[in-house]
């Protein structure tokens, strides 16, 4: 008896990736001159710039804390970053992403070392292609390290989800739009602790667990690139 194995095309993604494959990405640290720390990240068609000022003096007394630094984040999309021009200024989506980004980064920072000060994180999406909030968090953590902010670990972020009936890693813009679920996750890789978790769509508990594990694996891969980007920044200046 001859058994013929057919290639199940349902599992091939539009861009040819495997279900657990990340889009091509690159990270660079220390790309701006004025900011205390900065990073640039590309993943798929995303181009994200992150910058950090701080710890620095906080002038808004209302939010100042006597026992620790406050960490604030502003996520913003450039008007030219999307297909249809986006009007400048924060919209509700940006405000929410700003908040969850700050929440995702805070657990990693030794805030108690800098009472009465602020650490400001700025994320600019120069070009968007699905998964900008995850890319923003990943870049922001590199920028914090670049600025010399003491942290217990870098924070890295990645999304998994479901499209075309399959649980997949790192959704492209199209997969995000047309797909059945989107699950952005951020972790501190050494401990595996989760600092960002959102879910949007429709998953069975089984699918959710698969997707969560996929996202965590994706994060671990990106984490290695974060460390390399930081080290590369200083490698070049070594005696040249």
């Amino acid at each position: 008896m001859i058994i013929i194995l057919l290639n199940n095309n349902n599992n091939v993604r539009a861009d040819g990736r495997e279900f657990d494959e990340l889009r091509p990405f690159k990270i660079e640290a220390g790309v701006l001159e004025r900011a205390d720390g900065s990073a640039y990240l590309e993943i798929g068609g995303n181009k994200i710039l992150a910058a950090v000022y701080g710890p620095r003096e906080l002038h808004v007394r209302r939010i100042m804390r006597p026992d620790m630094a406050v960490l604030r984040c502003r996520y913003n999309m450039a008007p030219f970053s999307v297909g249809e021009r986006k009007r400048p200024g924060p919209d509700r989506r940006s405000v929410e992403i700003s908040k969850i980004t700050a929440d995702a980064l805070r657990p990693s920072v030794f805030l108690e070392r800098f009472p009465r000060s602020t650490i400001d994180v700025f994320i600019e999406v120069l070009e968007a292609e699905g998964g900008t909030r995850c890319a923003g968090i990943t870049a922001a953590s590199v920028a914090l390290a670049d600025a010399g902010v003491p942290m217990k670990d870098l924070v890295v972020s990645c999304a998994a989800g479901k499209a075309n009936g399959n649980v997949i890693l790192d959704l492209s813009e199209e997969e995000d739009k047309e797909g059945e679920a989107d699950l952005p996750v951020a972790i501190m890789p050494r401990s595996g602790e989760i600092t960002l978790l959102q879910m949007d769509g429709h998953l069975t508990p089984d699918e959710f667990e698969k997707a969560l594990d996929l996202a965590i694996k994706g994060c671990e891969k990106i984490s290695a690139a974060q460390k390399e980007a930081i080290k590369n920044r200083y490698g070049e200046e070594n005696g040249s």
Partner: protein
Amino acid sequence: MIFVEDKDLVVPGDVLADDEYHTGRGTFREGKNICSSLVGLVAVRDKKVSVIPLQSKYIPKRGDVVIGKITDIRFSMWNLDVNSPYSGFLPASDVFGKEKRDLNKAFDVGDVLFLRVVDVDEVKKVKLGLKGRGLGKFRGGILIYITPTKVPRLIGKKGSMINMIKDETHCEIIVGQNGVVWVKGDPMMERVAEKVINMIEKQAHTSGLTDRVRNMLSELLGKEIEEEEIEEETEAEEVPEPEEDQIQG
């Protein structure tokens, strides 16, 4: 057990050693492990692991000598920017004693002073003082800003690095522990010193720096510089108390 070597470049979260070792600057203990909290170079001394950061902000400590700029004049004090997330204040009584005087007759906004950190409280309010040899207002010269952790490298063991620059450029140079450097001399020499100091800052974490500094000085000044016994400060651990002659400039 230690998992890294002296002078390795590490990033926040890297595991450096287990509980056979003690935590030094730039590290923290988590369970049985000692981890790095910063981007920097590992320094291992006996059983202590530290990470010397490549980038950091200056946090004032009592006893430091710093260079600050006056940003505001209040009722009985001046506020100063000391290149830190924390601003400092200089009480008028430090200058005027018990008499009441117009503060801006002594120092005005924009003036640059060499001061001592007298006290820092638990919420990091910084009290500055002018009582001490060589402290006071700078006249003329230029300012150069470097990362505070690189100050020891700039000074060198027993001042060797900074003295080489002073001698060759004939400039007065004062290095504040807060990363602000004052240079005064012939305008061209000031710029030569500036270039050299900026180069030291960029390459502070590398070895063979003294030779490169000597070469750069030779090139910029167009002359040969003798190879004296220059001891390179390769260990940037604790910031050393500046020698009396450095405060004088």
